[in-house]
Every structure is written in C-alpha cells, then in structure tokens.
C-alpha cells in the first residue's frame, strides 16, 4: 500500500516538474518517493528474476552499463536500468517511478544499474548485487571524495557485498583488495600504450589473469580476446579507456549468460553512442558534434579527438564542478581560440585558457544564451565540449532531451 502511494505521489511530482522543465526532474521525484517508501528500490530490485548487476568506479560507468544492457537485451533478456548519469540514490528511485508498475515492481530478468561510488557503497549492504563491475579509480572529484583512497574504500565495500565482481585488473587500486576466486578480470594487452593514468598508488601490484583482454585498438576498430575467440568491432570509441569499458561489458555478459559471440560483435558495432559521448546531432539545421568531458581524462581525450582548427568551438564548464581547479590539470594549449566559453564556471575556464594563450571570444554563463550565441556562428565543424551539468542544460534547451 505504501509503495503504491509513493509511486503515485512521485509520479505526480515528476509530471508537474516536467510541465515546466522539459527533460528535467529526474532526482527530486525520487527523493519524494524514497521518503514515503524507503524500501521501494530494494523491493523493485528483488522482483527481478535474475538479480542485480551494478557498475561502479570513477569513470566509464555509463558506457559500460549501456553496452552491457544492450548485450543482454540482444540475447532476449528483459533488463531494467537507470538512465545515463541518474546514478545516485534519488535517480535510482526516479527510474523505478518512470519504468516500474503502479506498485513500483518491474518486469525484468536483470536489473543493471550504474552506481555512483558513494551512493552505491551506502546501498550495497541492503541490495547485495549478484555481480559488481568495477571500472577504475582516478584522482577525480576530489572536492567530493577528498582522496582516491576513500573511493577505494567505497568500491571495496561494493565488492565485499557482491557475490562476484568483474574487475579492471590493470588498476592496482582495485586489485589490491580483490581475491582471484571471486573475480573475472579484464584489461588491456601489456603492449598497448598509452595506458590510463589511474590514481597514484605506490603499493604492490597483484597480478590477475585478464579473462577478457583488449588486444588491439585504434583506426576505428577494436579487437578483444575472450576465452577461445578473438572478437572484432568497428567503433568510434577506440581509445584505451573506451576499449576498457567494452571489455568490462563483455566480461560481465560472459559471467551472466552464455553469449552468442557473433551477436555480441554485431550488437556492439551497431550501438549508438551514449548521448554526447562523441555524438553528432542535428540542431537548427547544423550537424553539431558533442563531447562530454566529465574529468581531466575525458577532457584530455576529447581535446585529442578534435582538430586545433575546429570551428566554431564552444567549451562549457557547468555547475557540477564545485572546485574548477582541476581544469588546470588539463592541457588546452593545442587550441588557438575558443569561440564561446560557457556554463556556470565559464570564468574559471576562461582564466585557464587565457593562461595558455588561447583566445577566448565570448564568455556566457547561461547555457541557453551560450548555445544561441554558438549556433549563430558559421564554420565547418561546430563542436561542443561540456561537463555533465552544462550538457544537461544545453540538451534540454536545444530540445535534445526526451
């Protein structure tokens, strides 16, 4: 009864919010529902026939989750998941409101959730995942997590309360707390360079087998070795960190089901990018390239993906950055100019750019005005790099949000 009430009230709140903000309102209705029925999430997850799978770590959660969900669905399984980046507790409740029935129950074989490290650690004891996918630990979001060692503690808790784990065995921040009998390892072939810069760790480097190994990458293709077979994929996501996300998904699907590898190859090659993970969308008659930059690693990668002659170019630093100091760890020096610097932290970003002698034409804090100014500009390769908050606001304003 209490669940029915929570779902009803949460949906009404969601409906009202979305009247005023198209594409918005994902977290607050979840907060309302969880305060009425705290067990709504755990009850919904228990109703899934084959259990809960969670994906957590500093980076790569959305892409790994999306690929894993697509692979399971391609094999005929019903999967319940949370929308990309709605990975905190309130977002998970909101997903139940959106996709569950009137009691908050879901019709699914698997529940596959992208989990924020902090919120996931708080939920894991009660939800007990069947499988945890642990991607990596970066020196990231220090304004929130203080120190990478505290992220390791949270991921270890998720590991401890999960039946099995798929783990990036190239990252010793993870391998230092896992046990070989409880994990399926994935990673890059030792010959692949450069390797991601995981959080600094001077401890021992325990060695684990890579059951799933990225053996070749680049030139819009990837090769991934699984036991007894070499899989080949055509994909734009051919950077090392993106290849690792794919390897994580493949390792997870091989642990959950007996996969048809031909179907895996076909599904991944046809997968659309997660919104703004290097996606081209048509906006006001222009093909605009969107690249989401969540942290120094993805900012650096996105910059490497664009030409120094990209025009027009807008870079946005949104309100999701509490302390924009980390922008000073990103090297923007390849750029000669940026047409529009936008988002709530636009001035901090502009200051960083100016100290690298990058010319900044316009600084506009409001996402809607920044987008309008950008779209008025002509040029052969309209491109936007933005952080998550700026992405959400811009996407909503441009009518790209569902």
């Amino acid at each position, binding site marked *: 009864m209490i669940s029915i009430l929570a779902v009803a009230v949460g949906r009404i709140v969601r409906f009202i919010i979305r009247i005023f903000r198209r594409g918005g309102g994902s977290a607050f209705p979840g907060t309302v529902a969880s305060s009425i029925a705290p067990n709504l999430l755990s009850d919904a997850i228990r109703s899934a026939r084959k259990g809960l799978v969670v994906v957590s770590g500093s980076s790569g959660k959305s892409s790994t989750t999306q690929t894993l969900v697509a692979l399971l669905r391609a094999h005929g399984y019903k999967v319940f998941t949370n929308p990309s980046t709605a990975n905190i507790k309130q977002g998970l409740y909101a997903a139940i409101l959106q996709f569950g029935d009137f009691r908050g129950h879901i019709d699914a074989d698997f529940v596959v959730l992208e989990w924020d490290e902090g919120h996931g650690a708080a939920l894991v004891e009660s939800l007990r995942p069947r499988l945890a996918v642990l991607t990596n630990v970066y020196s990231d979001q*220090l304004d*929130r997590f203080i120190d990478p060692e505290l992220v390791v503690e949270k991921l270890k808790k998720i590991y401890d309360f999960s039946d099995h784990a798929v783990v990036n065995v190239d990252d010793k921040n993870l391998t230092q707390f896992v046990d070989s009998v409880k994990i399926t390892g994935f990673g890059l072939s030792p010959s692949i360079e450069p390797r991601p810069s995981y959080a600094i760790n*001077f401890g021992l480097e325990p060695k684990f087998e890579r059951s799933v190994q990225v053996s070749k990458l680049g030139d819009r293709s990837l090769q991934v070795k699984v036991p007894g077979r070499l899989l080949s994929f055509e994909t734009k996501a051919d950077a090392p960190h993106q290849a690792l996300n794919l390897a994580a998904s493949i390792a997870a699907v091989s642990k959950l089901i007996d996969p048809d590898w031909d179907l895996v190859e076909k599904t991944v090659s046809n997968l659309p990018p997660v919104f703004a993970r290097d996606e081209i969308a048509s906006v006001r008659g222009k093909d605009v390239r969107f690249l989401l930059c969540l942290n120094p690693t993805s900012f650096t990668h996105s910059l490497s993906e664009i030409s120094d002659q990209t025009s027009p170019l807008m870079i946005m630093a949104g309100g999701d950055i509490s302390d924009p100091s980390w922008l000073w760890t990103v090297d923007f020096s390849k750029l000669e100019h940026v047409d529009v610097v936008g988002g709530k932290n636009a*001035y901090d970003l*502009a200051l960083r750019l*100016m100290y690298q002698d990058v010319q900044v034409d316009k600084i506009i804090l409001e996402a809607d005005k920044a987008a309008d100014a950008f779209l008025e500009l002509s040029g052969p390769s309209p491109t936007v790099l933005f952080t998550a908050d700026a992405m959400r606001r811009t996407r909503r304003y441009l009518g790209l949000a569902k």
Partner: protein
Amino acid sequence: MIRLATFMPTYFNNNGDQGNIEVLAKQLEWRGVQCSMTSTDFADSDFLLVGDGSRAVMREFESELVAITELIAERLRTGKATLLVGSAHEFFCSRLPELPELKKTPRVSEHREASAGDVSVFGYRNNEIDVDFFLERAFISTSLFGPILAKNENLLNIVLNSIGVTSELPAVHQSRLGPVLQGVRSKALGS
C-alpha cells in the same frame, strides 16, 4: 633570470596546484622577463612551490619532504617567495613552530575568503583544519587549492615584487584578464 622551482610536480598536483607555476611563468613571459624552471634544485630558487599530494603521495615521499624542511624553514625566516598548498601546508605546519599550529575542525568544502594581516585572498578549501592562509612577506602556506596566484592578483603581485619583477603587465593582458578575474571572484563568493 628568475628561477622557479616546484617540488615533484607530477605527484604534488592534486587540484591543479602546479597551475601556480604556470601562472608565474606566463606572467613573466608577458612582461618580457626570462625565467627557468626546475624540479630538482630548490636551494637558490626565487620561488618554490610544494603542491597538494594525495595520502599515498604523502606517505611515499615523507622522507623527501622531511629532507627539505630546513630549506623551507630558512625560506620562512627570510620571507622568500614560497607557496605550500593543502597537504604540504599541513605537513610543514606540523613541523615548523614558526608556522601556525593547526587544529582539527569539521570538514568544510567551499569557496571562501581568508586573510593574513591586511592581505585577503579567496579560493576553494576542502579540509578539516582551522587555518586557511598564512603569509609572512612572500612566504605563503595555505589550504586553498588550485591556482591561487591566478585568482588573486594581490597575492601574485606580492610574489612578483618579492622576486624582483617591477615591470607592469602589458595593458593588452590586463584588459583581457581583468573582467575574467572579476567573474571568477563573483562566482566563487557570490559578490
């Protein structure tokens, strides 16, 4: 030739603190003043930066930090241009009696203004200590992360004057940076 030094920049750069060295180098370049940079020879440097390091970094390089403690003490005594940030601020405050004794407080993560004497600066703090900013001539020890010299023109000028730079920043750069600095301050402090 101005000599800028930074201690283990790869490791002591938790929150973009090495940006402070970039700021000084660029300010000197814009003024037409030559400079060199080193991460090994600190003794005769005009400016020395020790940035914030993670817990793992602080454990690993504790003996190296201990080894430069006397050098830091000497720079403090002479007021030589020095910037200690975050965990380096805490490390040396716990070892040098001339620096403030830090007390533990509940963690506060926010942009804030801090002052020493009549010098007021702002930046982002995210720790559990009670002293955010210490200044003795051009010796700075602070919990305010990131490019504090980029954000605080007054502090930057104290450092530049201390290392003997007297030339003005060319107007073209002043006019570019001025409104941006105002915007950074307004956003951080809401004023």
